[in-house]
């Protein structure tokens, strides 16, 4: 086993564990922390695949900006511990087996696809994007969708402002 493979399994385990913890944790802030763990592990996985820029942006945007807002809101509302419900029969007898089946199916197809083969070969892919190549694509080929997305986000922010102001 080479170092990238070992790192891959460690980060993968952390990501999965974080995701499970996110659902199982009862205090909202613990769920938020678990989600941050997932995002940081994913960033390291991107790094192993050679996508430095995506990894950094993953941490800056998701772990750094979005999750800080989540934590901020949880702190502001001082959200308490959630109550556990009894499992519904539906979830127990239909949901759980179906969920496991879905996971196995995804694992099967990933394993058979070229992505799985490449990951098994130790991470670092040949299609690694340099920051320059990425920005060339983003600002030349995909310029219109890029700008359209930014306008869409702006409209969403304005909409949120209007909704917040109306309730006053």
């Amino acid at each position, binding site marked *: 086993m080479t170092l990238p493979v070992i790192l891959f399994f460690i980060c993968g385990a952390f990501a999965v564990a974080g995701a499970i913890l996110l659902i199982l944790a009862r*205090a909202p*802030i*613990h769920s938020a*922390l678990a989600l*941050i763990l997932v995002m*940081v592990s994913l*960033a390291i996985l991107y790094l192993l695949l050679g996508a*430095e*820029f995506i*990894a*950094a*942006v993953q*941490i*800056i945007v998701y*772990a*750094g*900006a979005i999750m*800080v*807002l989540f*934590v*901020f809101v*949880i*702190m*502001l509302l*001082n959200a308490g511990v959630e109550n556990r419900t009894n499992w519904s029969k539906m979830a127990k007898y239909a949901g759980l087996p179906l969920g496991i089946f879905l996971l196995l199916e995804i694992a099967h197809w990933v394993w058979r696809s070229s992505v799985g083969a490449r990951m098994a070969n130790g991470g670092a892919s040949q299609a690694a994007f*340099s*920051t320059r190549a990425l920005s060339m694509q983003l600002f030349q080929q995909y310029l219109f969708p890029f700008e359209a997305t930014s306008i869409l986000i702006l409209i969403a922010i304005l909409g949120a402002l209007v909704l917040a102001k109306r309730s006053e």
Partner: protein
Amino acid sequence: MDFISDHAVLVVSLIKIAVLLFVVMTALAYLTWFERKVVARIQSRWGPYYVGAHGLLQPLADGLKFLFKEDVTPPSSDRFVYILAPFLALSLALTTLALIPFGPPGIQVFGQPVFVVANSNIGLLFLFAITSIGVYGVALAGWSSNSKYPLLGGLRSSAQMISYEVSLTLSVVGVLLLAGSFSFNGIIEHQGGNIGHWHVWPQIVGFLCYITAAIAETNRVPFDLPEAETELVAGFHTEYSSFKFAMFFMAEYANMITVSCLATILFFGGWLSPFPASWTWQLFLPGAGLIALGLYCLYDTVKEMRGIAQLQFAVVTLLCLGGGAICLIPRVMPIVQGPFWFVTKVGLFIFVYVWIRGTLPRFRYDQLMSFGWKLLLPVSLANLVGTALAILLVKR
């Protein structure tokens, strides 16, 4: 020996990490001494004086005191998060230093550059990534203490750090446009030549925005609202005691060092000398500076010091003179140039930090927020657009 040459990256990196940690921890300790001395000077006091000559052993005494204090955990706190927060704060603050190049990449051992732990192509982005999750240390500390003042302090600091991070990042993009690189060495090498090529001249607006946002980002006076004593007792770390408190303290100082290093790299030419390369006498500066300091210490030892302090200061004198002599050895001389200039510039920045702390009063919270969003952000945005336009026009 085979193992070392086979795993050069791993072995050399581990050694570099150990050395960097030792140097930075010592620097952190003496930064507190430096700050207390300078602030004392500004306020016409003596500052630490009795523990060691000129209070030089005060950081050691403080560290021991922190270690032996009782470590209190509030019973209603969220234990796991309460313990996690200071670790998060300190480890993230120290991680950023791994990306900083303290000297030119050309000086190598086993094919690895000596003066940087992690030489990344997108060092600047990684640094921002790590600082952007640095907020959690403070926010979680405030929340997990489960007490009024820490919660308010934590909320304030998260709001402040999010707000100023935007301006901090935007103010730096101008430099990126000029240098055309994310890597620290690329940015520094773009400023090569002499003092006139430093980015601070074309990017003076960006620099002023950066330094303002940086002070706010590190929660220092005049933006130290998260720990405004008069309103919030001690802000987010009110409930922390003993070494956990010390960890927050160290994290704050480590952040100060990182931000100063970044300012040096981006705007002041990093490890480059301010003089043109043809002035060969500048090679003697590191050694000469240390020897001058040693001579001053010698004067102090003989004239001012008495008793045990005289002995301690004699040691300091010998260290300075010996270090200066080593720096003058022809083989060592070119190696110490980079670190010498880097440390000098960073030291100047830290002095400015302390100077500001000793001089300015604290902002009010609403002033802080409206200043950040209504003045700093538009100015740094305008600087970015202006720089982009200028580059476009010049290149045409």
